[in-house]
């Protein structure tokens, strides 16, 4: 109990200093919050993978940064933080449910092409060799393009979310995705 109170007071002091522009205090505050946020997210979304837990904790940190003006220094810090965390977790749950509603579990993927060859395991698309070629082509991309494709195409984040995660604008992200896809297409064509 006393330990919790001491922690609350420490975090409140750090947040007040951060509002005044103290970068050292802000850094210490954010680093102190990471394990706390991960625990909170894990309690609610225990089924998420480690990377997804980390992403959600990062989203809360970004929201804290944006909302820091709304913190009243006369009030305790943790209830304010947890309100932000709850909001972001609810948003994440909605996103997860939306995604799950559009996914269908099946043992055998349905055929996707009228011709037989591309659907046969071991040949055409879906071939392990293709997956390796794609993975290899991805690693050859510049970091910004690879990151843009990973977030928008592989992890299916929206442009807005991906832009927030990378700290770039939506326009710059679109350019990276476009260039990355062109480079991948070229690389895969060459490897054929």
């Amino acid at each position: 109990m006393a330990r919790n109170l001491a922690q609350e007071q420490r975090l409140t002091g750090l947040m007040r200093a951060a509002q005044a522009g103290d970068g050292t205090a802000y850094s210490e505050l954010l680093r102190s919050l990471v394990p706390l946020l991960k625990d909170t997210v894990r309690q609610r979304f225990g089924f998420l993978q480690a990377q997804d837990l980390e992403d959600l904790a990062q989203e809360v940190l970004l929201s804290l940064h944006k909302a820091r003006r709304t913190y009243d220094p006369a009030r305790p810090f943790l209830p304010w933080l947890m309100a932000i965390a709850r909001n972001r977790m609810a948003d994440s749950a909605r996103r997860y449910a939306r995604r799950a509603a559009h996914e269908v579990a099946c043992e055998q993927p349905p055929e996707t092409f009228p011709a037989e060859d591309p659907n046969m395991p071991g040949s055409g698309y879906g071939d392990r060799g293709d997956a390796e070629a794609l993975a290899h082509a991805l690693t050859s991309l510049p970091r910004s393009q690879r990151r843009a494709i990973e977030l928008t195409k592989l992890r299916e984040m929206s442009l807005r979310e991906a832009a927030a995660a990378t700290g770039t604008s939506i326009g710059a992200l679109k350019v990276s995705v476009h260039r990355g896809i062109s480079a991948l297409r070229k690389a895969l064509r060459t490897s054929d």
Partner: protein
Amino acid sequence: MQTDELIKRLVADLQPVRPLRSPSARALLWLALALSCVALVVRDKLMLLDPPQVAADARFMVEQGATLATGLAAAIAAFRSIIPGYDRRMLLLPLPPLGLWIASVGRGCAQDWAQLGADGLTLRPDWDCLLPAVLISIVPAVAMVAMLRKGWPPQPGVTLALGALAVASIANLGMQFAHVHDASIMVLAWHLGAAAVLSALGAWLGSQVLSSPHSPRLR
């Protein structure tokens, strides 16, 4: 992005910020600005009023009091809704004065109908009022949006609907002083109707007008 890298970026982006004043203080500040604008636009009409006569009209005074209270309550609720962890019951704050406002206008309609029959409920367009209504609303609306954008609205639609209700209420207050003898049905249709339309627009455009907390981004 790794969390360490994100923290470094957030720290690099850190600027000193002044914490927002309490929602009630911000609402009063906004109300003072909005009333000043209203008084400026309808000052000529206000000069023509006979204060004792206006004060003696109980129904008019109740209606105006309810309109003012609705504006203030909606502004307080809007400013509270941009603070993380606010009490959701605060969103209902404008309902009692809004109910009183609607009841008062509704009673006026019933009285007009009892005295004048169907003629008492004749609705006509009053386009002359449109320009003053827009002029009255512009500065309070811009100020409201600017003040709301400083916060963190988890439900931007609800926040902007409340802000729009506050603006429409205060604009109606001014328009009522400019048209003291308007029939109740005109107030019900045009004034309360405009408030309802503006609030619905606010609910619809909330996430576009107010920066959404769902898309945090470094400057």
